[in-house]
């Protein structure tokens, strides 16, 4: 029997979680844009627009300190950040294209090197996903194998119903625990009919075929044709739910400073710049090629997953109108 939660109770749930001193993060109007930000009350929750940035930053902050250092009496004193103090968090109101990203990223973050910063935050968070009834011509989650009602990554999954309430499915134990702890806010019942989903402009892609083409076309005129206009900013990567590259920088002086980890993007010219001055990805189309290769080939090679959720953010934000869905469609229709 599915659980039902009314919109009001959903907001009440947030209020309660905040009172429990949990970090509750959800879509919130921040200035003129909707962003995932800490909610201070249920009333902050804004579900009518896809946030500009993805929810990955809950696990993979834009910028975080790793350690600090100071030279004292000739010896360098290093202090690691105590990760055990990371807060318990609940991500609430993330559509499948955001909620699904940890399910993809967990693989790389716990591979040969375990990124304890990411993993500790992951362990301490519960994801409340929500089926997506919005969408525009940039959306293409179905094309990459996801769907507006995909539950991957969510601990608890909400489906908006026509009467404004939500059908809830506790996907994982964390989700069950969240419901169990606040059982009074949920009711049992069939509920109303679900809200319909929006049609998407991009047809389902044959990701196997695309990967095969990529394998065989590291060198191809297509790259120059589609990617020479890329101006090399990091907008696509930074707002992407799946991009996870970061840089580490020491800030301060050689004697006193902080080591910080922050987002990086393969579109930047300096991304692969070697200390020698040599840059293997010396022109922009090579950098853009890497973006596509990483998402649809390399990541699949290593982890059997596609590094894209089809949220369409990069399409909407690209300063020069590069459309990843269009590129995938082009590759999809190639014969050789």
């Amino acid at each position, binding site marked *: 029997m599915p659980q039902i939660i009314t919109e009001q109770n959903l907001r009440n749930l947030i209020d309660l979680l905040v009172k429990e*001193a949990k970090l509750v993060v959800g879509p919130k109007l921040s200035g003129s844009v909707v962003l995932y930000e*800490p909610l201070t009350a249920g009333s902050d929750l804004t579900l009518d627009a896809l946030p500009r940035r993805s929810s990955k930053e809950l696990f993979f902050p834009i*910028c975080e300190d790793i350690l600090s250092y100071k030279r004292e009496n000739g010896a360098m004193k290093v202090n690691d950040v*105590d990760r055990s*103090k990371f807060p318990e968090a609940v991500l609430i109101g993330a559509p499948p294209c955001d909620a699904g990203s940890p399910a993809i990223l967990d693989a790389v973050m716990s591979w040969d090197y375990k990124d304890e910063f990411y993993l500790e935050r992951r362990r301490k968070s519960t994801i409340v996903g929500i089926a997506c009834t919005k969408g525009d011509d940039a959306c293409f989650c179905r094309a990459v194998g996801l769907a507006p009602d995909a539950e991957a990554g969510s601990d608890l999954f909400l489906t908006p119903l026509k009467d404004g309430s939500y059908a809830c499915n506790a996907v994982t134990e964390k989700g069950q625990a969240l419901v169990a702890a606040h059982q009074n806010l949920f009711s049992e019942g069939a509920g109303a009919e679900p809200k319909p989903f929006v049609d998407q402009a991009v047809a389902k892609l044959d990701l196997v075929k695309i990967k095969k083409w990529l394998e065989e076309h590291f060198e191809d005129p297509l790259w120059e044709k589609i990617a020479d206009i890329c101006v090399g900013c990091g907008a696509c990567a930074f707002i992407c739910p799946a991009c996870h590259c970061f840089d580490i920088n020491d800030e301060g002086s050689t004697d006193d400073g902080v080591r910080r980890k922050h987002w990086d993007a393969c579109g930047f010219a300096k991304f692969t710049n070697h200390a020698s001055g040599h840059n293997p990805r010396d022109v922009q189309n090579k950098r853009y090629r890497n973006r596509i290769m990483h998402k649809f080939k390399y990541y699949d090679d290593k982890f059997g997953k596609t590094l894209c959720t089809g949220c369409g953010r990069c399409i909407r934000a690209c300063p020069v109108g590069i459309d990843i869905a269009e590129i995938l469609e082009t590759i999809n229709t190639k014969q050789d």
Partner: protein
Amino acid sequence: MHAATKQHDFEPKIVAFVCTWCTYAGADLAGTSRMQYPPNVRVLKFPCTGRIDPVFILRAFQKGADGVLVSGCHPGDCHYMAGNFHARRRFAAFRALLDFVGVDLNRLQFSWVSAAEGGKWVDVVTELTERVRTMGPMPEFKELEHEEQWSGAINTPELKEAYDSIG
């Protein structure tokens, strides 16, 4: 009789970017003339005000300056002919920018102090120091230094404390 040294609650940090030919020499003259002024100022010597990049001023505020003084040769007296003229335009523009983003320009003083104007050096430094003293510490840039984007913030009180103990 020495005047009793005044004790203040707040000792502002004043940074002065000066050219070596005029203002630095003017400050030397204040010294050789045994004039007295508040000890809050820290002088950084440049060949010419033309060398002073607005970034330095920004950086000084970020690193804790409560007031910044930029001082060089009077127009026409530049040892390098025109460095101060270029600096004058650069800083006129930079002031407008700082004002537009909400920085109180009372914390940023520009002056021409020649090698003969030890007295003017004392006046300029004293006035800026006392003005900034009444204004109190400059919070804006210092606060920014400690702020994080929410996702990178370690915002539980215990952790904050733990973190501060590191700092």
